[in-house]
């Protein structure tokens, strides 16, 4: 699927330089000047992709490189101030779009922001079935801290237990990520369906909610794993 047309949502419908109608093309047909991208452009659109969660990263990279060759400031060094400003802003948008979509977790977080208005940082939530383990870990971390402060002995046993519990948390995180991958598939199938009835809308909302929940638990586990890693260092 090659995208040949140099079309993107732009900030204006007329060229800033020669005032001719640019018809959505990011290089003016008349004077070939680069045009500013719309401030509200979403990252999927910026990279010519549908709002789906499984992305061919090879194709994403090709598209990113192709557009970098269009917008990067290196190619505007001798140009007017306006062209350089447009190049800088467009490049910045493109780079953010690429780095967000390249990583599957950031991609889904971004989709949640677009579709469900989630906060930039989804707050962590402890997975309920791990409550007991998590409480134990908290206690052990505190104990280890005290032992370190007193330069006392007996930390080996706690370290051993923490290592084992770290394994449990990592396994849980793995399971969450596998579930997330399934939801990606589900989301993409829903996105492919052309109908826009109420049932599909509810179904989509369900999927978004589940994804958000998983990310929330995953964030919690990540924080906890980082704390353990720090304590074990």
């Amino acid at each position: 699927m090659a995208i040949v047309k140099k079309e993107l949502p732009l900030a204006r419908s007329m060229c800033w330089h020669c005032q001719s109608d640019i018809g959505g093309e990011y290089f003016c047909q008349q004077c070939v000047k680069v045009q500013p991208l719309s401030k509200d452009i979403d990252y999927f659109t910026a990279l010519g992709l549908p709002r789906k969660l499984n992305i061919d990263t090879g194709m994403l990279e090709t598209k990113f490189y192709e557009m970098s060759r269009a917008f990067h400031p290196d190619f505007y060094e001798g140009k007017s101030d306006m062209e350089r400003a447009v190049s800088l802003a467009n490049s910045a948008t493109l780079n953010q779009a690429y780095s967000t979509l390249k990583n599957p977790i950031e991609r889904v977080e971004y989709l949640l922001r677009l579709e469900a208005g989630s906060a930039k940082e989804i707050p962590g939530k402890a997975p309920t079935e791990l409550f007991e383990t998590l409480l134990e870990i908290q206690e052990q971390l505190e104990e280890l801290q005290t032992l370190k402060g007193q330069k006392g002995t007996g930390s080996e046993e706690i370290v051993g237990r923490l290592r084992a519990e770290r394994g449990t948390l990592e396994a849980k995180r793995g399971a969450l990520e596998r579930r997330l991958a399934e939801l990606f598939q589900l989301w993409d199938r829903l996105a492919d369906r052309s109908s826009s009835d109420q049932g599909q809308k509810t179904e989509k909302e369900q999927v978004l909610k589940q994804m958000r929940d998983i990310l929330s638990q995953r964030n919690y586990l990540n924080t906890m794993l980082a704390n353990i890693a720090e304590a074990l260092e």
Partner: protein
Amino acid sequence: MARIVGIDLGTTNSLIAYMDGKVPTIIADADGHRLVPSIVAYTPKGLQVGDTAKEQLTRHPERTVYSVKRFMGKGLSDVQDELQYFPYRLTEQAGVIQIHIGNKALTPPEISAMILKELKSRAERFFGEEIRKAVITVPAYFNDSQRQATKDAGKIAGLDVMRIVNEPTAAALAYGLQKRKQGLIAVYDLGGGTFDISILKLKGGIFEVLATNGNTHLGGDDFDRRLMEVMLEEIKTTHGTHIKKHPELAQEVRVRAEQAKCRLSSEKEVSVEVPLPEDGGTYRRVFSREAFEAMVTDLIEKTLSPTRKALVDAGLSAADVDEVVLVGGSTRMPLIRQRVEALFGKPPHCELNPDEVVALGAAVQASILAGGIQDMLLLDVTPLTLGIETMGGVMSSLVRRNTTIPTSAKEMFTTFVDGQTSVDIHILQGERELVKDNRSLARFQLKIPPLPAGVPRIEVTFMIDANGILSVTARDVRTGEAQSIDVKPSYGLSDQEVERMIHESYIFAQQDIKERQRIEAVNEAQSILRATDKALARVAETQDLTTSEEQEAIRQSAAELRQSLTGHDHRKIRQAIEALNRASSPLAERLMNHSLQDALKDKKLSQMP
């Protein structure tokens, strides 16, 4: 487009390069020297830069500045630990280090500008034209203040800095151009004062930096110091000579230590001799490579942890990397080559000259900017996370490390109190949780129209440009109007200070010429005045040779010339000399004819140009 040169402004040595057709080439001086030692000496004979300044290291240690790059964009507290190694006095003023030489206090950007000027004039002699535009390299792990300081140095030197490029990336550009490589490469760059590791993907002419990491305070200088410490300690215990009493000894030992280190890369052992001051005899010592390696092995270990972090950030394992490229003079050490090979599981490439490859890459980037090379594009990253201070002294991140640049982040601000007219924003760079553990870049004061609390909505945009340098703009969302922002850099020169320094460096250059012209004119004036006095004394005895009007005119001209000497304008002095000459030459001629030649000897001499 005007010519753009590429400059590697190094801790130990600096170079300048250009594109000779399709080949990046180092510009050498008339004697064929390619490296300019990054040393600036303010000797009684005047300013010296490079090789001649290097000779002053042991002669005038307190007037010879080296390794100034370690101080770029830093405050005094950042370099407290190493102050003992530097023979010149350092202070701090408004977040900028001041280096005291004689009665002068100079900032690191001003000293760096001297080195840049030396490179600039080298290129100007080579091309026979003025050079105004340059690409300058910096360590990839340089923060915003350090990059800004480098840009300031360029401005002070009269250069338009078209781009700040990261050193390992520049090396990759030169390497990639030469080898036409594709795939994943790691650039391990250990220079005189800094360490960088960058992981790049090379594909179809695009050089995409995936991750970078490093340590801006680790390099060859630290290896020298390990040898130095051993030598100084031994000199103290066996010869009773203490460096505190002999600052020149510290430099002598440093220079010998550096030489010994370099030789130990090719030799199994070296003997070092240091003549001691006050007839203290000679200190002799043999160092084996093995012993030296044992002294520095922990320093080499310190490069491996950033290397592993960069791999993690790039989402790669060491085995994924296709090629490892070594850059920087320190990578000549066999132990470093072994450690790098062990980490990546493949022998590193060392066929490129590690001292020159960065400057060559800067020339390649310069050519890309000038539109010469059109099929290559470098996509670099910001090395450190950018954030702002939030409640409780915590840093909230805006742009994460290893984000491709240019990039921007937006943040909405509002007020908490009715009629509040400003919001303070503290900008930070670093990877730590707490504000105090990160680098403070600047404080901004955002002006807000007085409205009920929470009503103003000010959108602040943080833009990191392709140089990795931050700029901040603000906009009132309701009115769409731009909001004013007061920037106070935490470590660095304000725009006004840079302007003043550019002006001063220009003025100083002008003043140097003017001063020389003034001194020449004064000398000539004094000589003609002496001759005139003598002539007037003689005519007093032989009344018939001159009229009183003529004598009065000569005296008047002589007085005017004396008056002009109190000023600084050499042209006024010259004019007064001319006037006196005109007034006195008829009399001089008559005196000549009167065979009063002895009175005229001085005068005639003085009239010679």
